[in-house]
């Protein structure tokens, strides 16, 4: 790699830019009462929130894989009118305030919602205030990350392998499962991990759509928020650190998949 020296102005601004992100994290680490950390981490409330967060975020990633990979495939391979509008709509949650997403989910899947009222009257299923509601909210916010990553993978893959399989008589489904999926495995993995990390951190849509109850809908970010409003805000610092470490590990681990070995 070529060695290069940054112009002074760029160096200073870049340092300020980096400090903007690093300082808040340092603040969190410095102010966390580490002596109480072990006690807080092993308290039943924390463990319950951690367990629920893992269950919900992994389920959301599962749902996102089942629904999102086909969606990405359609976006990458089928040219149909309105594709770019549909793609924009399905990736909207990436930029939408999550609370707005939560309200939209209520209006669609809530007890009085478009589909929710039918679910309730026909099957007696009501999603708000349930763990399934948490999975819904997390999938809504996190799936676009998977769809975009997988679509990019599908677009950049070498399609000659699919053509070869076709000339050898393979059916379309066989080509998809035996040729396409293995070829895009790296972006599939990256998309799933990114989706999982986003689901793990989901707050706004969850508290709006699913509510907040320990063991049922109170995931880690909700527990952080609730604890912050008590006379023991330090407890939320420790939970924040746990979320921070998980996110950091995910990002550092994924860097190679995004940028090659940079």
């Amino acid at each position: 790699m070529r060695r290069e020296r940054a112009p002074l102005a760029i160096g200073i601004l870049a340092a300020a830019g980096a400090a903007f992100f690093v300082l808040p994290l340092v603040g969190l680490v410095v102010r966390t009462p580490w002596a109480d950390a072990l006690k807080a981490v092993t308290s039943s409330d924390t463990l319950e929130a951690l367990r629920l967060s893992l269950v919900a975020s992994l389920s959301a990633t599962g749902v996102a894989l089942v629904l999102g990979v086909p969606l990405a495939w359609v976006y990458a391979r089928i040219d149909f009118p309105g594709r770019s509008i549909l793609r924009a709509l399905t990736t909207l949650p990436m930029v939408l305030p999550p609370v707005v997403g939560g309200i939209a989910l209520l209006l669609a899947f809530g007890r009085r919602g478009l589909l929710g009222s039918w679910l309730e009257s026909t099957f007696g299923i009501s999603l708000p205030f349930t763990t399934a509601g948490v999975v819904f909210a997390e999938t809504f916010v996190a799936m676009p990350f998977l769809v975009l990553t997988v679509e990019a993978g599908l677009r950049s893959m070498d399609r000659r392998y699919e053509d070869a399989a076709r000339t050898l008589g393979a059916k379309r489904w066989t080509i998809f499962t035996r040729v396409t999926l293995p070829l895009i495995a790296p972006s599939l993995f990256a998309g799933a991990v990114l989706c999982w990390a986003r689901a793990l951190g989901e707050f706004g849509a969850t508290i709006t759509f699913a509510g907040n109850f320990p063991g049922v809908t109170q995931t880690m970010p909700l527990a952080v928020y609730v604890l912050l409003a008590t006379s023991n805000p330090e407890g939320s610092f420790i939970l924040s650190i746990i979320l921070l470490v998980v996110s950091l590990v995910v990002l550092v681990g994924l860097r190679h998949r995004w940028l090659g070995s940079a």
Partner: protein
Amino acid sequence: MFAAASLTDSFKVLATSFEKQQADVLVKLNFAGTPTLVTQIEQGAQADVLASADAANMDRLKADGLTSGDAQLFAHNQLEIVVAPGNPKRINALADLAKPGVIYISEAATVPAGKYSQQALRKAGVTVRPRSLETDVKSVISKIELGEADAGIVYTTDVRAAGAKVQGVQIPAAYNVVAAYPIVVVKGAKNSAAAGAFIAYVLSAAGQSTLASFGFQPA
């Protein structure tokens, strides 16, 4: 001005009329659950006045040495059960919250309203598991309005503020909890003179009648 979420509508009006009275004062309002406000002040947020929904959080600020002078009570509030208009689940008493098929939601015990709700239920001898612990009174009301939940316990003033979109069911005095609202000048307030004047205005006959029009009981 940092004020409890349940004071949102009344304090907006109080601030406007106070500004009219004082030519050169601009009141900036910040509403949130009282514990959140106290945490914000502890973490260095610039506040001149704190209007709290309970004594406990005021004591917390005092213990931090962040109050200037003694807190004064300026209003009282009571609890009511909030239900959808027409009361479709026929909830007439606290005990009805435990009926099967009723989705009851509460505020988290970290905000005063949640603590008061628990006290009222305990006094009435009712055991009911809320389906959700919302972070403030307004979200409880919203979820009743949207039809996601059937009942919650909120302040009388909140039921009144929500208008026709919800309905209140009174809680007998024997089980009810009276919430007392203290107000104080925050230590190190940049505008301590105006802060003191605002508190005096809230306690004045004009201020008290404004609060009464929102359903608060006098200090």
